[in-house]
C-alpha cells in the first residue's frame, strides 16, 4: 500500500520536476537584473578621491570597537539573489570575545568578510547598512634618529646610531595616532588597506592552506611588520616576529622562524597564523573557525592560547564557529545567526542558560554532551533553507516546533528581553508590548 503511494508521488512529482529547474527565460531575466545592480554598485566602489566625509561617522556607543548596523551583503548569482547577510546588527565591545555561532551558510563568515571588505566581488556586494569601526589613523609627525643596541667588549649595553651608506645617521618617521570612526561599508578600497592586517586581522580555518608554502615562516611574519609598522627595518621585524612566536607558545622560535610551513604540524601552523594575526597589535582579531580543522587535544591548546593572549593584549576577538562548546568556553557575548539573520544575541549566560529562540534551544539540545546521556537526540527537522527567494515570514518557521499564529505574518522584529539580551521571535512579541 505504501509502495503504491510513493509510486503515485513520483508520477505527480515528475510533472513538477521540470519546473524544479529555472527556465532559460527566467535565467536571462536574473542575469540582466544582476548585471544592472552589480554595475552600479561596482561603479560606486571604484570611484577615485572619495571625500572623507562620506565614510566618517560616529559610534553609537563609544565603548564598542565595531558596530554592525543593519548590514546586508548579497550575492548576485545565476540562480537569483542570495541574501547571505540580511540585516545583521550587533556590536563588538572593547576587550571582549564575541562569538558568532550558526550553521554553515548562515552568513557568519560573510559577515566577517564584509568587515574586512573581502567579499568576493563582483557577485558579492554590500548592498545596505553600515559597519562602524573605531579606527586609528596614523599621521606623520616628525622623525627620530635610529639607534641600535650593541654589547661592547666590556659587556656593557651601548646604544649606537645606525648609519647609512654615506655615513649619515638614519632616521625613522614618527607618527601620531588620530582616532576616527569609519564606516567600512562605504570606505574606498585604498583606505581599507591600512585597516586590514594592522587594525583588524584574521585567523583562518585551514592552517594547512593559509600559509604560503614557498616562503619561510619568518619571511611571512616579517612581512606583516614591514608592511604595517611604518619605518620598521628588517632587524626590527625579525625581533618582533620572534617575540610574537614566543608569545604564542612556540618553544623554539628561532627554529620555527627559519622553517617552511610544510615542516610544521597543524597545531604549530595555527599558532603561527595567530602570531601573524597579532603581530601588529590589532584592535580586533577575527577568528574564523580557528580550531575546526584541528584535533581535540590540539584544539584545547589553541583555545587556551587565545584566552591567554586576550588577557595579554587589549584586542577584541570575533570568534566565528559552529561549535557551541567552544563558544561557551570562550565568548563573553554570543550572536546566534540563522539564514543570514541574527535570531538571538546576548551574553554567554543568557544564550546558554536563558535561551529564548527555538533555534538556539534546538541547537543546544541536538548536540550530544559527553557528560550526560539521552536516549534519543533532539533534532531540528528539515534542512537549512536555501537563502535564495526567502519568504517574508520567519525563516525558521518550517522547522520550528513552537509555531504560533503570528508566525505566518512578517519576519519578527528584535525583542529586548534584558539590557543585553535580544531575540527575533514572535513568541516574545507580548513581552515587547509589556515593556512598552
Amino acid at each position, binding site marked *: 500500500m*505504501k509502495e503504491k503511494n510513493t509510486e503515485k508521488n513520483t508520477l505527480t512529482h515528475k510533472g513538477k520536476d521540470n519546473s524544479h529547474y529555472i527556465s532559460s527565460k527566467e535565467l536571462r531575466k536574473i542575469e540582466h537584473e544582476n548585471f544592472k545592480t552589480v554595475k552600479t554598485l561596482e561603479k560606486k566602489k571604484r570611484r577615485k578621491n572619495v571625500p572623507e566625509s562620506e565614510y566618517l561617522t560616529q559610534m553609537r556607543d563609544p565603548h564598542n570597537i565595531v558596530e554592525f548596523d543593519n548590514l546586508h551583503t548579497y550575492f548576485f548569482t545565476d540562480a537569483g539573489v542570495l541574501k547571505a547577510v540580511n540585516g545583521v546588527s550587533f556590536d563588538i565591545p572593547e576587550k571582549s570575545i564575541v562569538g558568532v555561532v550558526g*550553521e554553515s551558510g548562515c552568513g557568519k563568515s560573510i559577515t566577517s568578510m564584509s568587515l574586512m571588505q573581502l567579499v568576493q566581488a563582483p557577485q558579492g556586494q554590500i548592498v545596505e547598512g553600515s559597519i562602524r569601526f573605531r579606527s586609528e589613523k596614523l599621521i606623520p609627525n616628525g622623525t627620530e634618529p635610529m639607534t641600535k643596541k650593541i654589547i661592547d667588549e666590556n659587556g656593557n649595553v651601548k646604544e649606537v646610531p645606525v648609519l647609512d651608506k654615506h655615513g649619515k645617521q638614519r632616521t625613522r618617521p614618527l607618527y601620531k595616532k588620530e582616532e576616527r570612526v569609519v564606516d567600512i561599508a562605504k570606505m574606498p578600497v585604498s583606505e581599507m588597506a591600512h585597516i586590514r592586517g594592522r587594525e583588524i586581522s584574521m585567523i583562518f580555518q585551514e592552517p594547512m592552506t593559509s600559509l604560503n608554502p614557498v616562503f619561510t615562516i619568518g619571511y611571512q611574519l616579517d612581512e606583516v611588520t614591514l608592511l604595517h609598522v611604518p619605518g620598521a627595518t628588517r632587524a626590527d621585524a625579525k625581533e618582533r616576529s620572534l617575540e610574537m612566536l614566543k608569545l604564542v607558545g612556540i618553544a623554539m622560535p628561532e627554529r620555527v622562524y627559519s622553517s617552511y610551513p610544510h615542516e610544521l604540524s597543524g597545531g604549530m601552523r595555527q599558532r603561527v597564523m595567530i602570531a601573524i594575526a597579532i603581530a601588529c597589535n590589532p584592535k580586533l582579531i577575527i577568528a574564523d573557525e580557528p580550531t575546526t580543522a584541528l584535533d581535540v587535544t590540539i*584544539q*584545547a591548546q589553541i583555545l587556551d592560547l587565545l584566552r591567554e593572549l586576550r588577557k595579554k593584549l587589549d584586542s577584541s576577538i570575533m570568534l566565528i564557529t559552529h561549535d557551541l562548546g567552544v563558544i561557551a*568556553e570562550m565568548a563573553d557575548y554570543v550572536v546566534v545567526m540563522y539564514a543570514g539573520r541574527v535570531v538571538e544575541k546576548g551574553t554567554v549566560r543568557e544564550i546558554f542558560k536563558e535561551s529564548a529562540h527555538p533555534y538556539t534551544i*534546538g541547537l543546544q539540545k541536538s548536540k550530544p554532551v559527553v*557528560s550526560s546521556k539521552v536516549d534519543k537526540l533532539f533534532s531540528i527537522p528539515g534542512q537549512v533553507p536555501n537563502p535564495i527567494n526567502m519568504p517574508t515570514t520567519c525563516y525558521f518557521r518550517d522547522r520550528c516546533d513552537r509555531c504560533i499564529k503570528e508566525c505566518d505574518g512578517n519576519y519578527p522584529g528584535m525583542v529586548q528581553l534584558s539590557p543585553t539580551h535580544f531575540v527575533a521571535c514572535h513568541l516574545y512579541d507580548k513581552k515587547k508590548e509589556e515593556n512598552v
Partner: protein
Amino acid sequence: MNASHKNDAPLKSEYLLEVNHLKKYFPLNTNVFGKPASYLRAVDDVSFKVRRGTTVGIVGESGCGKTTMGRTIMRLYDVTSGKVIFDGVDLATLSASQMRHLRPKLQMIFQDPYSSLSPRMPVGEIIGEAVKVHGIVPKSEYKDYILHVMDECGLPSHYFERYPHEFSGGQRQRICIARSLALKPSLIICDEPVSALDVSIQAQIINLLKELQEKQNLTYIFISHDLSVVKHISDEVGVMYLGSMVEYAGTDAIFDAPLHPYTQALLSAVPVPDPDVKMNHKILTGDIPSPADPPSGCKFHTRCEYCTDICKEKTPELREVAPGHFVACHLCDSMSRSENKISGKPKTFRCIPSVRTVQ
C-alpha cells in the same frame, strides 16, 4: 582478546566481527627494486570483537589510523597481517571476486558526503546501482524497493531523478546511508558520518542511524573523532592512538572512569556547551608524532605526564584490568586491582568528573 569467550563455536558466534591482531603497513620510500625502506604503521596490531546488533565506537585524533582500520576491515586496503573474521569467514584470505560477492553484507558510510557521491549520476541510480548488480531484489520490484529504501532514509521519492549537487550535506549523507542500506547489510562501518555536517543535521543523521539499527538489527562500527557523538551512539568504545588501541571498554566505563592517560586527556579536552562548567583542561603538550616514525616503547610516552622509564622502553600490551575493560598502559599494573574495583576509579589518575567544577 576477550578470553572468556574463547569457547564459542566458530560459526554463528555472538560476535559478528572479530578483528585479531590486524596490521596494515604502508610502504614508504620504496627503492629501485620496489623494496620499501620503511613502513608507515597505520594500523599496528589491533584486536577487538563486535557483538551482533551493537555499536562499537572507535575514537582517536587524525592520523591515529582509525579510518585506515575501517577500510582495511572492508578490504578496501589489503591486510598486511592478522585476521578479520566476519560471520565466520576470514576476510583477509578471500580473493577479490569472493570478496566482491560478500560486499553487500558489510557496507561503509564515508565522511565527506560531497565527494562520496558520483557527481554525474542521479540519486536513484546511485542508490540502486549495486542493488541491480548484486540482484538484491527481482527486477520487477527494483524501483519500488529503491523508493522504499529512500523513504526509510527520509528521502522524498521525487529526489529519484535529481543529481547530488542539488542537495545539502545532510541530504547527501542520507543518500549515502540509503546506498548502503539498499544492499541489506549486516555490518555498516560509519567513517565519521556526521563530522562534515551541521549540528542540527548531525542529530538527524544520528537518530536515523539509531532508528535503522533498531529496525533492522544492524551492527555498526562507528569511527569518529567526536567523543560526544561516539558516547551517544556506541555500546563499546575503543580509543586509538598512533595505530594502536590504547583502551577498549564499555561506553560507560570509558567515559566515567577512563584509565589510560590519553583517554583522560581526550575527554577533558572536549569543550562543554555550558558557560558555568569551567573546564580544567588537561592540556596535552606537543603534537601527535608521525606514524611513520612512532616513539619507542609506549607510543604515548612523549606526551604523557605520568611517563616513567619503563614507558620509554617497553611497549605496553592491551590487558584486561576490569571485566571487559582493556588498557594498554604500564602504570595500570602498578595499582591494585581491588582498589580499582571498589571505587570504580583508579587512584593513579584523576578522573574526569572530578576535573570539572561547577561554579
